[in-house]
């Protein structure tokens, strides 16, 4: 199937990208988005892609000095902070802002569940009440909307200055005099977007996805490797032994092959309990059968090749025959077949994890991510869209690349 060379190129490029993402993993995702893999922000669960929620863990500021006047309640031109004996920064001056945010976030998260996600948001009166009649704050927070209904996203963004923490002050305090003055102030803390939204616990889906890619690819590769080793050993032994041994060995493969194998895997997993290792073993236990058949057929056909016969006639021993003739000639086709086991293993892992029989929480795989979102397809389709697209691409790229190599 070497019809379209560009497909092969595209498949390799896609694979390179997915492997890079898997190697980068959730930690790299945290570096980019600022959200940890298990970090939960339950105020806004099921947030859509692009939602800006939490000020970044690493302090970054928007450079707008306007927030200084809003936070400097006593108008002395400085925001004081002190370090506790254990080193944690504390700042009574920020307490009103923190209290206001607590009230506001309660209103927001209440409205979020009811109507926030379809853009209607909270009534302006609620925001006013939460901000305790501070006119400067109200004016700043309510810039983006009218009084009837304020969409939540702009509200979260315009009230960022309320989320200035003592830790932020400590980071801004360049001269270390225990206070941030207007010259040191760099603006309100920036929020970082959830690139692919958040899940039911308010975890960042992009970071979870990176975790899932890594897990799926790892299980797929290891299971395929294990299955290849078993299959090659079984098939080659059968082909080289010949006679009754061969027919018994291959008959066994035939019988096992005729079973609903994934259901037997489900049975075994229900007996031993679901875990990543069990899934890996179960998949390897399924996949070796095709490999055994392929290798046997290949070795059989190689054995009857004229150059092998010639080598035997010339007195080539069995060890040398295998090492110098069989292995080099069988290597390429077997590698291509082994590569085709990887997408099959990835699919099976995803299937089992989707049913809850594979990778267990808190670890994620593409299958568990799809299962998590499948119940909320109408409300939050992004939860399924991202892992499903990645799973499809992963399987497609490996299949195409291996097919073309064959």
């Amino acid at each position, binding site marked *: *199937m070497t*019809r*379209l060379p560009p*497909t092969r190129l595209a498949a390799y490029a896609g694979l390179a990208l997915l492997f890079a993402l898997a190697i980068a993993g959730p930690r790299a995702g945290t570096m980019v988005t600022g959200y940890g893999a298990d970090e939960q922000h339950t105020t806004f669960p099921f947030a859509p892609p692009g939602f800006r929620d939490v000020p970044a863990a690493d302090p970054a500021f928007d450079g707008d000095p306007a927030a200084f006047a809003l936070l400097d309640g006593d108008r002395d031109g400085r925001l004081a902070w002190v370090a506790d004996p254990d080193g944690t920064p504390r700042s009574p001056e920020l307490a009103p802002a923190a209290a206001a945010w607590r009230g506001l976030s309660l209103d927001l998260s209440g409205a979020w569940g009811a109507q926030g996600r379809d853009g209607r948001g909270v009534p302006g009166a609620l925001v006013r009440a939460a901000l305790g009649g501070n006119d400067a704050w109200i004016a700043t927070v309510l810039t983006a909307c009218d009084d009837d209904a304020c969409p939540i996203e702009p509200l979260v963004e315009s009230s960022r200055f309320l989320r200035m923490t003592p830790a932020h002050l400590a980071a801004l305090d360049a001269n270390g005099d225990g206070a941030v003055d207007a010259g040191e102030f760099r603006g309100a803390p920036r929020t970082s977007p959830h690139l692919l939204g958040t899940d039911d616990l308010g975890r960042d889906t992009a970071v979870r996805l990176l975790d899932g890619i890594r897990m799926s690819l790892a299980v797929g590769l290891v299971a395929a490797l294990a299955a290849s080793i078993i299959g090659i050993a079984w098939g080659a032994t059968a082909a080289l032994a010949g006679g009754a041994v061969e027919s018994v060995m291959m008959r066994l493969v*035939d*019988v096992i092959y*005729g*079973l*609903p*194998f*994934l*259901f*037997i895997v*489900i*049975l*075994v*997993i*229900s*007996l*031993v309990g*679901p875990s990543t290792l069990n899934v890996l073993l179960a998949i390897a236990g*399924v*996949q070796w059968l*095709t490999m055994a*058949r*392929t290798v046997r*057929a290949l070795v059989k056909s190689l054995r009857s090749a004229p150059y092998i016969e010639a080598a035997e006639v010339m007195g080539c021993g069995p060890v040398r025959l295998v090492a110098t003739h069989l292995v080099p000639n069988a290597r390429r086709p077997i590698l291509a*077949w082994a590569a*085709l*086991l990887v*997408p*099959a293993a990835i*699919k*099976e892992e*995803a*299937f089992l994890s*989707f*049913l*809850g*029989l594979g990778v267990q929480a808190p670890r994620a795989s593409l*299958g568990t991510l*799809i*299962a998590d*979102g*499948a119940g909320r*397809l*109408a409300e939050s*389709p992004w939860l*399924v869209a991202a892992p*499903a*697209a990645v*799973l*499809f691409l992963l*399987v*497609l790229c490996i*299949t*195409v690349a291996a*097919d073309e190599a064959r």
Partner: protein
Amino acid sequence: MFRRTARALASALITLWAIATGTFLLMEHAPGGPLSGERRLEPTVEAANLARLGLAELVRSPCDGLLRQLIAEDAEVEAGGAAGVVGGAGEGCLVQPDRGGTVLLALAVPGDTVRRDQPLLAVRLPLWTRYARSMGALARLDLGVTFTSRGERTVRENLADGLPVSMAIGGLALAFAVLLGIPFGLWAAARRGSLGDRLLGTLSTAAVSVPAIVLGPFLLYLLAIRFRVFRPGGLEGFQDLILPAMTLGLILAGVLQRMTRAGASSFLEGPIAFALRARGIPEHRIVGVHALRHAAIPMLGFLPPAVASLLTGSVVVETVFHLPGVARYLVGAALNRDHPMVMGVVLTYSVLLVVCTAIADLVHPVLDPRLRPGGPMAQGTVPGDPGRRSEPPSEGGAP
């Protein structure tokens, strides 16, 4: 033909026996089960369940001093604990079983007055007896009771509930796949190398690669949520089966299209097609009849794996589309260690697969004249076994 039928039948029976024995052994060594649940059942209910599962026998023996003594010695006969051996060198008062066994459960505590025919103990039978009874129950199609329902429902009742739905989805999907995959495969083979052929090739590669857990939610979102062509879940009528069947059918159609195209195009380039053309047989007949028949032979070997992929796939679509099929029972049972239920599904599906394999074996000579009596491969010793699928598992073995 007779020999072939007999061989297919014998092979099917041996396979089924092996599966039944395998599941029995798995069940024997399963951790958890009826006796290790967190909530204990009424002893009499539990004993009745054990008896129905073929794991134990109820002992009725009011005269027996040994039995009374056993109960007295260990009033809290615990789950699976060996409280003592009944029978053997007893006082000869035991009515049954006389084969010996381990006490699983005491149904009476010391001090109880029991009626003459009231069961006193549930006794674990010896392995061979348990095996024989389990096989006997299977032969009577008795799959036992489910643990999760606390013995209220039998596995057969659950299967009778779920199987029709799953079968309908699978059958519809198979029809969908055949009607879509084979014509497009022949069409692509007749126009090898054309733009349409390449387009179909790309589409079928995509269809083969897409897992059911991706395609199912995608179609559900597109056709039931975005454009409300279908209802998004549940089962109220035939139209609720179309979307799930389409999910599975599209994937399978991709495989069938590739297989048909490969088989038919190798035939159309071969000497037989050349000879047919030389005899003036119209091309549409060569493609539609001869090439189709040639391409159908490898598909026979593909039949059992295809059925297997439909079965696994239907677990996914039933979960995604909230359909009351077998998946509902299977997944819950697998997570809750309800071994009889899982085993019932595995056994049922094994029978289905084995029957499909046998059918494929029997139909093979109808399509392939070389296998008929007097043909060059009539003994069934086909070199390389061409009917067997030698494609990688990515072509349908996986959901």
